[in-house]
């Protein structure tokens, strides 16, 4: 992992230019411009409102703003997760003309894909921050957990991105598998709901590595309490594991990329 970090630092300009390319192209082509970044979180929140209304209906009460806020808070990081995974899985195969023609560390492809999505996430996060300013939430010291939780999530995404991009190069249908998994992942991830709603058995849902992160964000931002330490540690463990293991796998397979791309 350290050797990969060193090569990436040496090629930081390349990483920067590739990320910039992805961002520029995306915003240049669409009339919506920066609205792009908040489209996905908005859709997720909208869907969340519908789900919450159904739940409230069954419980025999009306939807309160406190029902919707957690969904809004979790929508942006979840959108970031989905888009990064989707975009990076395809990143090596999409750039096969570069992979087969020019030598440089291939890790820049999945990583620049994640970085360009991070840019979208930053915009969406800023919008949500403004919304939160007008909500009845009172900020607490626990907000300091936010960067920690996001770092865990970025580590997980970075590792997965490298793993999946290289898997998709060897097996071109990995992409479709990822699409299907991502489509239904929202039901297994606490975005529309909170794990607490399921009682004790809901803990099983926290085995999903990003679930503790999303739950943690809800806890520190909406409820103003510290995240569950054990489950946060569990998620951090995943992040660390992926960060340690996948660069090695990636490096070992890299010499074969040009032959199969």
């Amino acid at each position, binding site marked *: 992992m350290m050797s990969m970090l060193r090569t990436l630092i040496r090629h930081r*300009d390349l990483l920067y230019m590739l990320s910039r390319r992805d961002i*520029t192209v995306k915003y240049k082509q669409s009339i919506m411009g920066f609205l792009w970044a908040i489209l996905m979180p908005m859709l997720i929140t909208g869907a969340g409102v519908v789900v919450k209304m159904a739940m409230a209906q069954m419980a025999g009460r009306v939807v309160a703003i406190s029902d919707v806020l957690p969904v809004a808070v979790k929508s942006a990081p979840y959108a970031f997760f989905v888009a990064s995974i989707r975009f990076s899985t395809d990143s090596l195969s999409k750039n096969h*003309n570069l992979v087969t023609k*020019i*030598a440089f560390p291939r890790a820049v492809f999945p990583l620049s894909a994640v970085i360009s999505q991070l840019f979208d996430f930053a915009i969406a996060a800023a919008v949500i921050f403004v919304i939160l300013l007008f909500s009845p939430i009172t900020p607490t010291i626990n907000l300091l957990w936010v960067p920690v939780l996001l770092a865990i999530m970025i580590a997980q995404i970075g590792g997965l991105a490298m793993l999946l991009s290289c898997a998709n190069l060897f097996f071109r249908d990995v992409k479709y598998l990822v699409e299907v998994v991502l489509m239904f992942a929202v039901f297994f991830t606490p975005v529309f709901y909170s794990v607490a709603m399921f009682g004790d058995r809901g803990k099983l849902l926290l085995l999903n590595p990003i679930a503790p992160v999303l739950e943690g964000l809800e806890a520190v931002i909406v409820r103003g309490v510290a995240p569950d330490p054990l489950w946060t540690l569990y998620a951090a463990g995943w992040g660390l594991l992926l960060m340690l293991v996948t660069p090695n796998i990636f490096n070992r397979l890299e010499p074969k990329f040009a032959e199969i791309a």
Partner: protein
Amino acid sequence: MTDVVLEARHLHKKFRKGELYTSLRDLLPALARKAVTGGLQKSEFWALKDVNFQVERGEAFGVIGHNGAGKSTLLKHLCGILTPTSGDLIVKGRLSALIEVGAGFHPDLTGRDNIYLNGTILGMTRAEIKSKFDAIVAFSELEDFLDTPVKRYSSGMYARLGFAVAAHVEPDVLVVDEVLSVGDFVFQRKSVEKMRQVMKSGTTVVFVSHNLRAVADLCKRGMLLDHGTVTAIGPATEVIQAYMERNSENVADDPHKEVYCPGVRLRDETGVETVQFDAGKRMIVEVDVVARKTNAKLAVVLECRDEEMYEVFNTSTQRLGAPTVDLEAGQKFTAKFGLTCHLAPGTYHIGIYIYRYDIQKNFDTRFPARTFYVRSETDVRGVAHLEPEVLSQDKS
């Protein structure tokens, strides 16, 4: 004391023929089948076999060979895109490759953005590109289109921008693959000049091409690859000659031909057999004709075609006023043509036909019977060498 910057020692590369499983959908059934049947070893072949060579600092080294000889595979090893199956490849210093100009251009980005993008892909830092930006733009002659997305560029403009960026990387070793043929004539000329300039500045250049003239012009030394092995290595002119001789090796004769041509030789004016001629000098073409059955009124047709197979010249013994030849079974004669090489530098092919005009019968076709190469001190392009000179260019 030699200063070797590039060295290959017993370089081998194995490739697999046949299909690779590139999707899980294909792989899983294949694995199941393999488990049941035991599975056959896929046929493998050597794309490169025991390749050894050294290139010294500041040298221009040419690599030639037929399609599929392993040239591109070798290049990809030099660039570090492929790793050898066995053997070593030693590169000292920064190596940059001009394999495909404009690789990594994004059509929606402007020329300016693409210069930065392509430059970093080729290994430059942003600061480096910034300092060379004006030179790159000036070289590409695209000042007015810098803020236009490259998807609106013509293919020539696209190639020019790509070459301009690549030419400014300033590596220690530059690998060039058939890129000097981009853009229009003026730009091609500029590219070749830039290459010369790069070489003069002490950069080592490895040049891979089908364009024998460019190889002969730019390289002092070279090697010939054939099916992954080095069949000739040494001074560029000798390697080119080896390539051409291989090209024109005679194939086994068809025993059904009544009359056939077993051999064609090219000689210079002193009578030495060669395939290299200087423009404006005499060349002699000797054509052997053998009859299996008695035949009368035979003539030899000689034609010359350029690299693109366009006919440059065509004549025959009979049309030149020589008498036709009658041959009895087993008899042989040799026709000698004298020609003056009024040809522009390049590669040309000689074709031979054994023909009888009155009954319009072609007995044997030999094409290309011989391939030869013309060089000239004068910079002339095209096919004809009209021995031009500038008489005056006075202002009036």
